């Protein structure tokens, strides 16, 4: 029996086909689905902030950031037997949930910055991005199946799409 593993906010998990992996209600956060195309080992990270280095206090939750979160996801997948050279990624999320009329705060732009940080980290690790559904102004629920690489995306009032 296959099951669907759930990943929370600022969290990451791995799974092996035929299991799937999901995260609910991505807003400005970004969901990064990675799979090894040969042995179908997969993983999903739900990152919330772009950069761990911009943070002042000592932080324990590395899954929260694009840079450390993706590194940890890849490390855990490698531990299960996945090979970096065979990994591919799909990403979703990074929405701008609220629009502000120029009051100078950077509250709104975290989604865009998250997407940028995710792309640059994946590039650094030489993991190609096969597809993405990012930006806009709505939340997304995603389900990833490492068997096929299908990345299902649901949003309120919209049809489910597969990328």
């Amino acid at each position, binding site marked *: 029996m296959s099951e669907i593993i759930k990943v929370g906010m600022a969290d990451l998990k791995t799974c092996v086909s035929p299991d799937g992996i999901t995260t609910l209600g991505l*807003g400005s956060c970004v969901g990064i689905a990675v799979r090894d195309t040969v042995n179908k080992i997969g993983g999903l990270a739900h990152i919330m902030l772009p950069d761990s280095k911009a943070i002042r206090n000592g932080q324990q939750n590395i899954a929260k950031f694009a840079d450390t979160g993706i590194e940890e996801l890849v490390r855990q997948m490698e531990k299960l037997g996945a090979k970096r050279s065979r990994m591919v990624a799909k990403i979703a999320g990074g929405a701008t949930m609220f629009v502000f009329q120029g009051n100078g705060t950077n509250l709104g732009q975290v989604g865009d910055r998250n997407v940028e940080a995710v792309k640059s980290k994946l590039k650094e690790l030489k993991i190609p991005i096969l597809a993405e559904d990012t930006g806009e102004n709505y939340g997304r629920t995603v389900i990833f199946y490492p068997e096929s690489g299908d990345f299902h995306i649901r949003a309120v009032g919209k049809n489910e799409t597969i990328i």
Partner: protein
Amino acid sequence: MADMSLEQVTENYYDVLKELGNIGAGNAMTALSQMLQCKVDMKVPQVRLLEFRDVGEIMGGEEQIMVGVFLGVEGDITGSMMFMVEEESARHLIQKITMGMLPGGSEFEEMGLSAMKEVGNIITGAYLNSLSTLTNMKIYPTPPSVTVDMAGAILSVPASIFGIFGDKLLMIQSQFYDEVELDGYFILIPDLESYAKILTSLGLPMV
């Protein structure tokens, strides 16, 4: 103080924050009651400090559709504030405010959202006013922004702001009733420096 985390602040001053939440929510309900021209009762608000991965659960799941009103806070303290209410409750509020002109069952059209923005404005304004009075500080809200979406997606915004300081989110849950039970959630997000200012102004300097 500089290296004090949000967790420590909250643990040390839980009762104070709870009381602030209580008074703020009380004022917000009074404002709501005046706007709706009916009696609105409320339960004692619950103050919760939640792990990010658990926040969705509180509101009936990450995919629960909610209306979120989000605004910035400026003046002597800086930060932002969110008011969230469940879809059904929002429809009920919209129907009451528009005196039935917008049927409760319809989609959230521009009028409905605009009405919700106004509700959010009044509720958060009353909340911040009471905070301002208590602390004797100038606190101004910026114009609000409103959205209808999954709870998790809406919460990602305050969570990413709290995320800069720690791994938890401080939330005040207040249940209120008129004819029906409504669940509303306040999330006040002062910058860490502003916490110090709030506590100091109440005669509780952070050490």
